[in-house]
């Protein structure tokens, strides 16, 4: 393996895994990890879950930092350049621009992730937050600690987890969703409804098919005005309306940008030495023969490792193939999804009986099993992932479901 310098841009999950994997693979050259945030790499899923719980230590003891600074610097020998975003990539000079410094690379992995979309005209209004970063989560938690009446905009996974956290504290919470059914793009119509029923059952006021027309307040949010003419009084608004890949800094760099950095099966950007990983990448997933951009923990971690291996040894580059997987925790239930949500048919093979029985829904495309969703189905979800991985047919999947239900 060559030496030289590896530069990883984006100091979060995918970036950290890239740096760690390089060392594990025996890379002896220099590694520089560049991150826009001041913080050491930390884990995001807990930010909308345990981190929001009452009594979580505000002194920072429960900050989900992956590694202490000593491990990164001394054991892994990683140079940390934190608190400054990369401003540009210069392929001709093989350099990344960070503030007034140009960092030369022989191999680069870009893992700048995604940023939360904001609502227009809410800048400067205190009490309106997105939830993507640790700083966001600290602010949201402080407001919940203060007993904020909360409005969540968007009934996606993050908004729904915030709603669960607020209800756990007994706070009043309203979730506003513009679509008639939440999560349609993530899990499809039928299962979106089943998931939404968890909100109602837990006392969350879920309003679908209405959008936010205005957020009012004098310097600080006071109320939210909805498209049906109603208003909701609020001290805290959490906006969970999706993300944009963080590619703005790459405009004009020669990389192909189209809802993410477009890469081939090996996570190669097409620019010599430069690979990409995590939420920022749109690559061709051989498992389904199509392009996708995933925003899931597991694929970000795996891509970080795969991208750096390929960057260090391009001649031996291997495709990264995966059956997408994500989880989300709502109230007392765990939602898990494997595969793809676009389907010709979604069949519920086990009905959800809250607290007593898991829910299982299978997704069919053509005559193939392409997805599965479970609520409280920890013991079966990964078996469906296995079936999808090995290209199982629909009949085989139904037979398996029948056998599991009987068991």
């Amino acid at each position, binding site marked *: 393996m060559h030496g030289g310098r590896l530069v990883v841009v984006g100091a979060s999950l995918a970036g950290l895994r890239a740096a760690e994997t390089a060392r594990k693979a025996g890379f002896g050259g220099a590694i520089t990890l560049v991150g826009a945030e001041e913080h050491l790499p930390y*884990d995001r899923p807990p930010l909308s879950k345990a981190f929001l719980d009452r009594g979580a230590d505000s002194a920072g003891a429960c900050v989900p930092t992956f590694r202490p600074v000593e491990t990164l610097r001394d054991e892994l020998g990683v140079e940390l350049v934190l608190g400054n975003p990369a401003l540009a990539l210069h392929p001709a000079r093989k350099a990344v621009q960070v503030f007034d410094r140009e960092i030369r690379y022989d191999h680069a992995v870009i893992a700048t992730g995604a940023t939360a979309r904001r609502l227009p005209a809410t800048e400067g209004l205190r009490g309106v937050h997105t939830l993507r970063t640790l700083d966001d989560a600290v602010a949201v938690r402080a407001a919940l600690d203060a007993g904020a009446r909360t409005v969540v905009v968007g009934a996606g996974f993050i908004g729904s987890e915030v709603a669960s956290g607020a209800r756990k504290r007994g706070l009043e919470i309203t979730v506003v969703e513009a679509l008639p059914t939440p999560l349609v793009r993530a899990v499809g119509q039928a299962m979106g409804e089943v998931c939404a029923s968890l909100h109602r059952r837990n006392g969350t006021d879920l309003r679908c098919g209405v959008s936010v027309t205005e957020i009012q307040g004098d310097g600080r949010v006071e109320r939210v005005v909805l498209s049906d003419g109603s208003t909701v009084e609020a001290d805290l608004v959490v906006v969970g309306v999706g993300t944009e890949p963080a590619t703005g800094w790459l405009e004009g760099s020669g990389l192909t940008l189209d809802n993410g950095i477009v890469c081939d099966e090996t996570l190669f950007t097409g620019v010599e030495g430069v690979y990409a990983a995590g939420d920022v990448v749109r690559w061709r997933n051989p498992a389904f023969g199509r392009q996708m951009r995933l925003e899931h923990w*597991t694929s970000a971690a795996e891509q970080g490792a795969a991208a750096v291996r390929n960057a260090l040894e391009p001649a031996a580059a291997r495709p990264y193939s995966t059956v997408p997987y994500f989880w989300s925790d709502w109230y007392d239930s765990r939602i898990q999804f494997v595969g793809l949500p676009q389907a010709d048919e979604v069949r519920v093979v086990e009905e959800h009986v809250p607290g007593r029985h898991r829910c299982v829904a299978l997704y069919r495309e053509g005559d193939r099993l392409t997805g599965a969703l479970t609520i*409280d189905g920890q*013991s079966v979800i990964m078996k469906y992932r296995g079936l999808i991985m090995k290209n199982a047919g629909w009949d085989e999947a139904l037979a398996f479901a029948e056998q599991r239900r009987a068991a």
Partner: protein
Amino acid sequence: MEIIVDRARCTALGICESLAPEVFEVDDQGDLLLKSNTVPEGQQGEVEAAIAGCPTEALRLRG
């Protein structure tokens, strides 16, 4: 080699099960069951992938 699970860390997401189904299984109570306490013949790679894939770093090998 023995497989060690840190129960306090494991959140039963089952990623290990998808990577090494012959060794790991999560039940509906969210408890991780080890089908084998040691790494079975020919399963070293799968078990290592499971250890690396665990989001809470709850798995390790001893011995």
